[in-house]
């Protein structure tokens, strides 16, 4: 049986959450189903793509982890390079 639109949207949302480091608990799955439900409704009433609608709504449904990136470089302590002038 080919994947339905809602199944594709749910897969996409869950994959994103997994990649973002969210543990896929029962609660998370329930919220993902609610999100897809809302996206389907929006697509039916306003037209548009279910996948896109689901991804657009995702930040409103989940607090995505925002791991801090390491400090790439320390504060500047500038030096100048000396060139001999003959």
């Amino acid at each position: 049986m080919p994947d339905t639109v809602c199944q594709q949207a749910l897969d996409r949302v869950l994959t994103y959450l997994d990649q973002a480091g969210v543990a896929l608990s029962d609660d998370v799955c329930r919220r993902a189903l609610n999100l897809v439900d809302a996206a389907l409704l929006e697509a039916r009433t306003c037209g548009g793509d279910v996948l896109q609608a689901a991804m657009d709504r995702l930040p409103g449904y989940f607090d995505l982890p925002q791991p801090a990136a390491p400090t790439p470089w320390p504060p500047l302590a500038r030096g100048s390079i000396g060139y001999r002038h003959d």
Partner: protein
Amino acid sequence: MTERSPAWRRRALVRRWLMASFVFGQTLVAGYYLLWVLPYHGGTIVELGMLGLFAVLYAWIAVGFWTAVFGFVLRLTGGDRQSLLRRHPPEVLAQTPLQKTAVVLPVYHEPVHWTFSGLKAVFRDLERAGQLEHFEFYILSDSRDPEVWLEEQAAWRRLCRELDADGRLFYRRRTVNLNYKSGNVADFLRRWGRRCRYMVVLDADSLLSGKTLVRMVQLMEREPRVGILQTNPAIINGRTLFARLQQFANRLYSPLFATGLAAIQMGDAAFWGHNAILRTDAFMKHCGLRKLRGRGLFGGPILSHDFVEAAYMGRAGFEVWLEPGLSQSFEESPPTLADELSRDARWARGNLQHLAIMLFEPGLRFAHRMAFMNGIMSYLASPLWLAFLVLTTIEAVQMTLLPIDYFPEGHQGLIPLWPEWRPEWALGLAVSTLMLLFLPKFLAVADQLIRGSARGFGGAVRMLASVLLEIVISVLLAPVRMLTHSRHVIQALLNVTVRWAGQNRTGEATWRQALVTQLPGMVIGAGWSAFAFTLDPMFFFWSLPVAIPLVLAAPTHVLLSRTGPGTALRKRRLLVIPEEQEGLPLLDDAARFRSETGGGTSLGAVAEAVLNPVLNRLHCQLARPRGHHGRCRAPAELTGRFIKAGPDALSRQELCRLLQDRDCLARLHTQAWRAGPESWWGQRIQALGDGSR
């Protein structure tokens, strides 16, 4: 620095005069022998040319020989008492407080996981030494390929997390690569040069133990006149037969050569570009590299920066020391002959460029000018040897095909010049040349036997067998290197551009590659030998030591590039080195970290940078905020093509334009996750989902 000249200079002067008198005295005697060996005793232009070339080449190998003899004698008598390490008792050194030191790792298209794992091992070893707080680590990338630099950024993040090194391990990538590696280091110094008193420079394959790093800083603290302190890195991790031969030769012979070299150079030593510590303020003040103002090869940025920086440091009154007593400093050999020769193409160009600096740069110390000469001769010796062979062939042709000339050009008078042949003198000359080449190897064997450390090389018998094997292979490789280096020198002088790229640190050579690269040499070797046979059987036999290795170049090449023979010999404890038998936490760590998986996915670094929310966020933070008000400034056509057909639809420059821009990266992430299931990105996301379930 205007202080009184240090005491070591007088001793260095004596040692150098001694060395020069041995080298030139021996060369004079050998030249005299050659004159009597030549049929007209130097009475023709060809013979004079042969004499001149012979003298230069003989003196060149005599320098190597006497350096090894110096090293042997010094090691026999307990080491050089003038060396930096011997000046300070270990307990005094151990009590010397450390100063903040930057460990910098410039990289350019290196294997990311492998290189960073080495740095991780160094970091861990410093942690074990309990001195991590005094060191900062900087990965300085010049990589241009987004697949590589995005992987570097992701690996740096992982490394920071694994080592809990946030704020101690930094990453900086230049987007404008000016002046190669020295430009990369200069860029670092311009930004953070005043943060650290010292800077330790690593190569991608460098490993330095925590103990050695600490000792280096302590020595620099004790010796404020020293601007650069260079260790003598041992080659390790050889897997192919070629790399194992290089590794064995380096580990066994290098202590003699390095001890001798350090004793002669003393505070006028060279900098080899890595595995060394530099006094940052002195380096910044005095070692700026201006572009050369000459033409062709002798114009533009300096290619081989390290020797020049050492010379500039010396000119400013600072000392540069090679300290062979600083052990636990390691690097790796190129895995195959092709890789070595490819690296040599760059080095030959860089060293020949030093000719302009050696001759015309004002104020340099004489010893540093000689160091330039040494580097230049490393490659120039090959075309000189080739020219000597050509003149020898011309001489043989003249003797065989032309009537005897009793009154050659330049010979005046009524008495004819009788051609003479003195085979016993020729034999003496050949034996003396062979002695210069091979005796140091047996001195190295004697050195290990006297010290009772032959066990580390597989025991006395296996060590000797390994040396004999190494000699056979080095005889097979010498003519191949000679021909290739001659080509490199000609290309450099004609200013033919050489590609600047990272080394291959893993691959094996194929038969096709070997045949393509070695065919010209094989044809020259066979043709020359056949010609010699038609001239004179004696000349034919004389040509064989050069011709046979050339004819066998392709099989030699392939055999040496294989890991199988290297492993088989190791199992028989041939070509082994002490580090392989005894182990060292630093090396064990490096091997273990490198064998672990890198942490990336099969997506590739670019696709992962776009799809993975965590990595996309990281790359966005590291990218430049180019647009205004969150607008990606790349043309919509570019992002459209990227989203429609994936990264392969864009050139490297186009990809860089998108992926170096913070707003574009964020937009690509949003668009890719909204792409339809059948699209390029949709399929990648599907694969990600399948992989995680």
